């Protein structure tokens, strides 16, 4: 594969090292049947690189290899390699031969010697195993013993000729410092070999960072520049340059961000496979939010990985339990895996390698990294930035929905583009802040961005209850957001007003009821009056009639008396004592 030029060279055959990043950077591996020089200071990873090439060749292609150690005993090398999953003792039976090529201290030196005997022995071993690879580890130690620059060069050329004759893919490692004292030491070797790979270990902010570059590759193109190196379970890993193209499947599936109100704010939840960044000052409950997300994922039955830096898994479980987020059942069921690491002890690259291995073994659907900003402490910021973005891409490539927290030093949203500059990569960015007013700190939640989602522009107050985080509406009064006690007061005030209104209404209703009753009573009284008046009126009219009747009776009586007309008995209420029987009838 050709990376940095359009012209495809007639590239020479290459032997893959099995170190993925290196094979990418070198366009396929080391020059096959040729010699590569690995140079670097102590602890730069030369031996690991060289041995890993042999191990990978043996394991992946059944190719045997010879390892000639000038500096370390076979036992030391095996002990060092035991930290990787190489299983050297098994390989040593058929595919790997170690020659302890240290000259014992008791050996007396009496004149010049050469390597022709050693090469003869190695040839025998090579033929026996059918080896295709050889490593000369720490050749500088041997050269020093020759005590003569001319002899050094002679023996190096002897090795070169021998390698060419035996068609071996060779790796020669040599110590070389960065200082000028070492500059000229192996110049001739660099000219002689086909490929030169300097390895470096540097201390940055008290953390050692490993780097690798290809300085020379005869007959082949390669990617220039230094590449970060880390050491994981399978050995050395070289960080390949980020692919220029991004291939991430775009999902429309929504998954819960942890609780309903937040999902609503995010337009229905997080998109499956998206990355969410939660930023905020320490104590703004980023971990709680992340914990809620993880719990919700587990409750959906999805495997979840919780990676925490600088805080142990147990305190996290305990602390989250105090706000009603229960990890224990999910840890027990195996849905939830937790991994905690100290950031200051190891380089960011190593953390990346570890997380990568975890993703490979756990295969999570959802993941939390809390806080990602901690890896900025693991060595230089530039390195940490590269690691952070690679971590996010790694997670996204795996289709994992990830929740990342990052601590902000400032509290100004404009400068809150985190140190690690991941805010541009993240799909959703939730910011948590404190609002300090009237002697209170209250947590505020804002969604700064959420790609592919209509999201709320509202600031919400985040309240931590015994049953998890809750988002509350905030009030704005006079252009200020009210939270905490002020919000409560405002709410209380609102409640008070409602009560007052209700009371006033009730009062009014009663008043109206009373006045209605009053009116009714008055109507009743008036009706009574009316009835009385009618009755009176009736009485008057009947009286009058009676009087008329009686007067007619009286007339009759008078007439009767006067003229002795036949008369009937009177009614008796008149002045006369007889009355006409028909008189009442007439009155009606």
């Amino acid at each position, binding site marked *: 594969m050709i990376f940095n030029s359009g012209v495809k060279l007639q590239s020479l055959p290459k032997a893959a090292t099995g170190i993925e990043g290196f094979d990418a950077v070198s366009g396929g591996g080391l020059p096959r049947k040729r010699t590569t020089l690995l140079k670097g200071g102590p602890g730069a990873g030369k031996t690991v690189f060289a041995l890993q090439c042999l191990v990978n060749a043996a394991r992946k292609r059944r190719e045997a290899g010879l390892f000639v150690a000038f500096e370390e005993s076979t036992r030391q090398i095996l002990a060092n390699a035991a930290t990787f999953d190489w299983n050297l003792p098994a390989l040593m039976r058929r595919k790997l031969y170690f*020659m302890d*090529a240290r*000259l*014992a201290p*008791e*050996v*007396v*030196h*009496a*004149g*010049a*010697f*050469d*390597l*022709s*005997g*050693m090469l*003869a*022995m190695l*040839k*025998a*071993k090579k033929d026996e195993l059918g080896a295709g690879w050889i490593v000369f580890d720490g050749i500088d130690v041997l050269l020093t013993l020759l005590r003569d620059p001319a002899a050094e060069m002679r023996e190096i050329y002897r090795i070169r000729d021998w390698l060419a004759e035996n068609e071996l893919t060779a790796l020669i490692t040599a110590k070389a410092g960065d200082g000028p004292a070492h500059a000229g030491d192996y110049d001739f070797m660099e000219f002689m070999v086909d490929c030169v790979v300097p390895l470096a270990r540097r201390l940055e902010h008290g953390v050692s960072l490993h780097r690798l570059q290809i300085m020379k590759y005869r007959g082949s193109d390669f990617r220039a520049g230094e590449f970060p190196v880390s050491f994981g379970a399978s050995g050395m890993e070289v960080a390949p340059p980020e692919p220029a193209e991004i291939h991430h499947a775009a999902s429309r599936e929504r998954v819960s961000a942890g609780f309903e109100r937040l999902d609503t704010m995010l337009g229905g939840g997080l998109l499956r496979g998206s990355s969410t960044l939660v930023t905020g000052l320490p104590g703004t409950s980023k971990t709680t939010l992340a914990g809620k997300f993880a719990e919700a994922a587990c409750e959906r039955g999805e495997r979840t990985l919780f990676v925490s830096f600088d805080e142990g898994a147990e305190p996290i479980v305990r602390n989250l339990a105090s706000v009603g987020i229960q990890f224990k059942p999910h840890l027990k069921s195996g849905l939830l895996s937790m991994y905690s690491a100290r950031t200051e002890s190891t380089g960011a690259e190593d953390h990346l390698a570890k997380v990568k291995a975890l993703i490979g073994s756990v295969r999570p659907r959802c993941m939390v990294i809390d806080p990602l900003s901690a890896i900025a402490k693991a060595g230089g910021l530039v390195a940490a930035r590269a690691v952070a973005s690679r971590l996010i891409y790694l997670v996204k490539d795996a289709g994992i929905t990830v929740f990342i927290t990052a601590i902000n030093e400032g509290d100004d949203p404009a400068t809150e583009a985190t140190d690690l500059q991941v805010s541009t990569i993240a799909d959703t960015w939730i910011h948590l802040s404190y609002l300090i007013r009237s002697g209170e700190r209250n947590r505020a939640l804002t969604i700064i961005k959420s790609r592919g989602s209509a999201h709320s522009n509202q600031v919400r107050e985040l309240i931590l209850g015994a049953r998890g985080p809750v988002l509350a509406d905030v009030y704005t009064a006079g252009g200020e957001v009210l939270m905490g006690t002020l919000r409560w007061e405002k709410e209380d005030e609102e409640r008070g007003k409602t009560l007052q209104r209700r009371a006033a209404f009730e009062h009014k209703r009663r008043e109206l009821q009373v006045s209605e009753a009053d009116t009714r009573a008055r109507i009743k009284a008036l009706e009574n009056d009316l009835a009385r008046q009618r009755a009176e009126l009736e009485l008057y009219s009947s009286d009058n009639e009676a009087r008329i009747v009686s007067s007619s009776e009286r007339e009759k009586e008078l007439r009767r008396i006067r003229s002795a007309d036949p008369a009937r008995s009177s009614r008796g209420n008149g002045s006369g004592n007889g009355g006409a029987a028909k008189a009442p009838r007439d009155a009606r």
Partner: protein
Amino acid sequence: MKLRLYVVDGAPNSVLAIANLAALCKKNLRLSFKLEIIDVLKFPRRALADGVLVTPHLAKLSPAPVARIVGNLSDSGSVRLALGITT
């Protein structure tokens, strides 16, 4: 004195070592030398088993103490000292 010299046939240092050792023997005729010369090209496995790394390689097998000397043996002082030849 029982000695074994590992050489590569024809290699300049090996040729020199054989000559130097022969001269030493001649100078110390009163000592009895039993010398075995092994060509590593012909017997690489044996040399490997015997712990030989570079050539020429001289091993003093007896009498005790045993000693190992590498180089073309041109530094006769060191050789004599290593072999315990005091005279």
